[in-house]
Structures are given as structure tokens and as C-alpha cells.
């Protein structure tokens, strides 16, 4: 290696190569390409490319993810975590849809189609009206419902401090009772499950 510890391996990445692979979008909108799409267009694209799994209204089909609804259920016994109810940043929706959807045909959506689909998902969540058009210019002005719903990992203060102490070894409780049994639910696959070879 040289004085900086470099081995001289690899070669310079070209501008076109970086542009092809670096398509991530940050919460502040950096990475968004120029373009726009409205709810009406989004409904058409969604019906064609998304609704077979996610439902006509982004409500989800069978076990496939629900993209709309579930507002104010996050503290419930069974929270419904959707783009509308849970996701903190709109950038994530744009980025993920553009890069990894439709499932099985990822990377095929144009920037305008992606803007339109995202606009339609916002509409499905009752967060915009049917006249709404999303573009790279108004993108960051949109505030998600649950943008303040996240805290950075605080286990070290809330948990580690109290769980780092010598544990009890003898007579740690008076009695023990079984309170729940997996065999009552009986959801384990027969014969230990289908083997995946």
C-alpha cells in the first residue's frame, strides 16, 4: 500500500455508472429526479401495475401489504402500519416504489409514473384531494402523518441500565405456573414443517 494505505485497486466510477445505480432519495428530497404525476394518472397506473396485490384502493389483497388506512391504530392491540399511518418520510415511498416495485418487475417505473403512484397512495390515505399533483418541486413540502412517531434506539437508558446486574440464583420466586401453551394454538406446521430443500 501507499502512504495512505491504498492498494491502487479498482478504477474510477464513471458519471453514467453512478447515475444508474445511485438512485436513493433522502428525506430532504435529495436524489429526486425532475418530474410530476397527479392522482388521476396515479389511479390508472396503480390499477394496471399495483392493484392485483395491493387492492384498487391500496387496501391490500389477501396477505399482501396494506398501503392505506390504519390511522391512529399504532397503540392498539393490532396496529395497522401503512404508508399513511406509519411511514415517517414521503421520500421512502418514492424511493422504494421506484427501485423495488412492482414486485417481480422492479425498476420499470418511470419517474413520472412513480410521482403519480405516490400521489395516488396519498389520496388513498385521504391525505390529499383528487386534484393533487406531486412533483419534485412540491415534494418536500408534504408532511407525513407519523413524521414524529420515531425515537432513536434508547435501550441503553431504558433497559441496559436495569438489566446489567447480578441475577437471582436461588428461590427467585414462590411458585411457577404455565400461563400459555403453543400446542393450544396448533399453528406449527405438521410434522415439523414443510422442508425447504
Amino acid at each position, binding site marked *: 500500500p501507499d502512504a495512505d494505505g491504498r492498494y491502487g485497486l*479498482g478504477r474510477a466510477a464513471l458519471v453514467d455508472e453512478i447515475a444508474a445505480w445511485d438512485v436513493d432519495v433522502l428525506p*430532504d428530497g435529495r436524489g429526486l429526479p425532475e418530474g410530476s404525476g397527479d392522482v388521476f394518472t396515479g389511479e390508472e397506473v396503480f390499477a394496471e401495475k399495483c392493484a392485483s396485490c395491493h387492492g384498487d384502493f391500496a387496501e391490500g389483497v389477501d396477505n399482501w401489504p396494506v398501503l392505506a388506512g390504519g390511522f391512529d391504530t399504532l397503540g392498539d392491540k393490532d396496529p395497522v402500519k401503512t404508508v399513511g399511518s406509519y411511514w415517517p418520510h414521503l421520500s421512502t415511498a418514492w*424511493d422504494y416504489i421506484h427501485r*423495488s416495485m412492482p414486485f417481480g418487475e422492479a425498476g420499470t417505473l418511470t419517474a413520472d409514473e412513480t410521482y403519480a403512484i405516490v400521489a395516488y397512495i396519498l389520496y388513498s390515505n385521504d391525505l390529499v384531494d383528487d386534484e393533487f399533483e406531486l412533483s419534485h418541486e412540491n415534494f418536500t413540502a408534504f408532511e407525513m402523518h407519523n413524521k414524529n412517531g*420515531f425515537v432513536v434506539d434508547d435501550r441503553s437508558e431504558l433497559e441496559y441500565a436495569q438489566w446489567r446486574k447480578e441475577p437471582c440464583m436461588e428461590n427467585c420466586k414462590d411458585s*411457577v405456573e404455565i400461563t*400459555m401453551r403453543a400446542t393450544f394454538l396448533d399453528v406449527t406446521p405438521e410434522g*415439523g414443517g414443510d422442508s425447504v430443500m
Partner: protein
Amino acid sequence: MDDIFKSRTSRRAFLRGSAAAVAGSVAGTAAASEPDPLITELQDWASYTGVGVDETPYGLPIRFEADVVRRNVEWLTASPISSINFTPIHALDGTITPQGCAFERHHSGAIELSKEDYRLMINGLVDQPLVFTYEDLERFPRENHVYFCECAANTGMEWAGAQLNGVQFTHGMIHNMEYTGVPLRTLLNEAGLNAAGELSDKWVYVEGADASSNGRSIPMEKALDDVLVAFKANGEALRMEHGYPVRLVVPGWEGNMWVKWIRRIEVVDAAVESREETSKYTDVYEDGTARKWTWVMDAKSVVTSPSPQKPITHGKGPLVISGLAWSGHGRITRVDVSKDGGINWETARLGKQGDTKALTRFYLDTEWDGSPMLLQSRAMDETGYVQPTKDQLREQRGENSVYHNNCIQTWYVNAEGIAENVEVS
């Protein structure tokens, strides 16, 4: 019996011990009334020949071990393409996971990417964005390390109660391999980090070559510490389903961040807050707020035998209680085992000194008197952290956090030796 073997400190003690052991085995074992034909009759394998050395260029386990395989639980996910399967940890011993039955978790399937087609890009806040071929990566100085990779969702189905009846299903989203690779810091240095300026608030965003991409943000401090860009596991190339030809190894941190088929590393001045760190891999509390960036996997353990898939079939007498312990914070220093549901604990024996952020095997060699047991294990790591009960975790987090369930597991073993997944008070 234990005492006898421990006292073999001299030839005299050894002889005395041997005699006692023989006497003990006579007393403790049913005497044979008829000679055993497996001994007295000539067996085929002792007379005919076995298969030649050219029969199996790359072998699989003998057919009698056919149950030691990955298993799926279909109802867990919408599609087997974005899904999980489970390592048969009930049947394994030691610490190294055989790659062929090590669990898989994909978000858009296991892709086939040749070394010839492989490219790794480093871009963003670097002095010189670079492209590496696979061949380039093998020319950097390498390191070897054993680490566990545990899915953040391991044991996640058990938050609200005892659900799946087998340690493969409750704890099998884990594997432990010896990796060979290049430290990520070596590659970052090759691209140069001066352009990034102050490093303490910088991140690397890593993504895979697959359709899901699985992009995750990793703070620079971790990236420059012990993260590996790995191309070998347990001595050979990575398996296709584990990221062939190159994956990220992020010691101690949730498996989702171990990006497979890694194609790009970007130095950024903020977390990308991708789908896999907002919608997923965030942990919802009881009040509806959620933790993000819960990267480390806390200390955890489980008894793998006896367990629901591994009942006691030999009756009373000597019993090996065996299990695994691990911690994302460092080495496992101690594992305690309880047979009465946590009233009393005995300290188990570690199979060998624990490696940092790696699976550690423990054993409690005991005598079973045939009465029912409530088996539990409790890991401690080098930071002094003691594995909590599920009730302790639920008191902190509620039941909906999905990920990071490192609770103490209980198996109820009945008088017949059958084990069952239960919760206890």
C-alpha cells in the same frame, strides 16, 4: 458419574474411577438377556464394500439425517419470495452452522450473480468514486472472523404468547459462520474519506444487487470498526442464498443489515431512512411510538435439546441439556439453566470460551429423575447484561414491537420426555 471422571488426576485415581464406572454402568443399565445380533451376526457393511471416492464430488448429509433441513412456515408471509426459513438448530451442536441448512431471508428471492458479472461501487462523499470487480476484492488483505447473523424478527412471532412449537421455528432465524473478507474500512480508505470531512456524523448506505435492494444506513463509526465485506463462509464461497459472491457482515447487528449480493456503498451525510429502516425494522411501543435504528441484537440464549423437536427418548438418568447463547455486545461470559421455571438456577458449562458476537454452546450435564421440568436458559454477556424474561421485555415495550425479542424461553418437559413451548408466570 460426574465426580468419578473429575477425579482422574492420577493413575491410582483413574483405576479407582474406572472400576467404579464399570460397577455403576452395570447397576444403571438393563442387562441384555439375548446377544445383540448387530454384534453377533456379520453385517453387510462389515463384509461388502462401501462407495468409492469418486461417488460424491461434493457431498450431502447421510440420508438418516434428512430431518436436519431448513423449514418454512407458510402462513407467516404473503410470498415465499419475500420470506424466511429456519435453521434446524434443534438438531445441531457446537457453534458453526452448516451452510446448506443455514436460514434464508430474502425480499425478492435468492438471485444468481456470477463473479464475472459482479461489480461493487463506492460513491458519495469520497475522494474518488470506485468500481471494483470480484477479482479486485480478493487482492485486498483479508481477515477471518466467526459471527452470528440473527434476523431482527427471530422469536418475533412469540411476543404475544407461546405460538410455534419448536426451537427451529422460535429461534432458528440465525446462523453462525466463519467469514473471510476485507474490512469495509479498507475499501472506504481506498476511495478516500477526506471529502467526507468530519466522520462522526457521516453514514454509509449499503444496498444489494437484487430487486429489493435491501438498502440500509450504517453509521460511519460502525463501518470503520468491524464490518466485513465477505466472500467466503465456513471455508468456501458464500451460498447463492447467502449473497454469492459478496455480502456484508455486520457483527452483532440485526441480520437485515447484512446486505447480500452487495453492489454499492455510498458515503452520505445523513441516514437515507430507507424502507428497511422506517416501515420495517422499527419497533412499535405500547403507546404507538416506535424505536428506529435498533441495530444491536441483545444477549439471548435458548435450550436446543431437550426441546419440542428433540424430546427425551432415553428415560431417566444422565441427561445433556444443551443450547446456544449469543450477544451482539460482545462475548457470552455465563449461561444459567433452570429446571423449575426460574425458581432456581445452575450455571452451565460453555463448550468453549465464547467468541465475540458469535454463537456460544453451553451444556448442563445433569441427571433426570423423570419428573416434569420447566427448562429455561439465561445468558450473560461481557457487559454484565442479563437476558430478560418476556414479561420484563413486554413491560418495557408492549407486545407489538415485532423485532428484537430476546426473552428467556421456557420448555415444559413432561414425564414422558415430551417438550412443549410454554409461557410461565
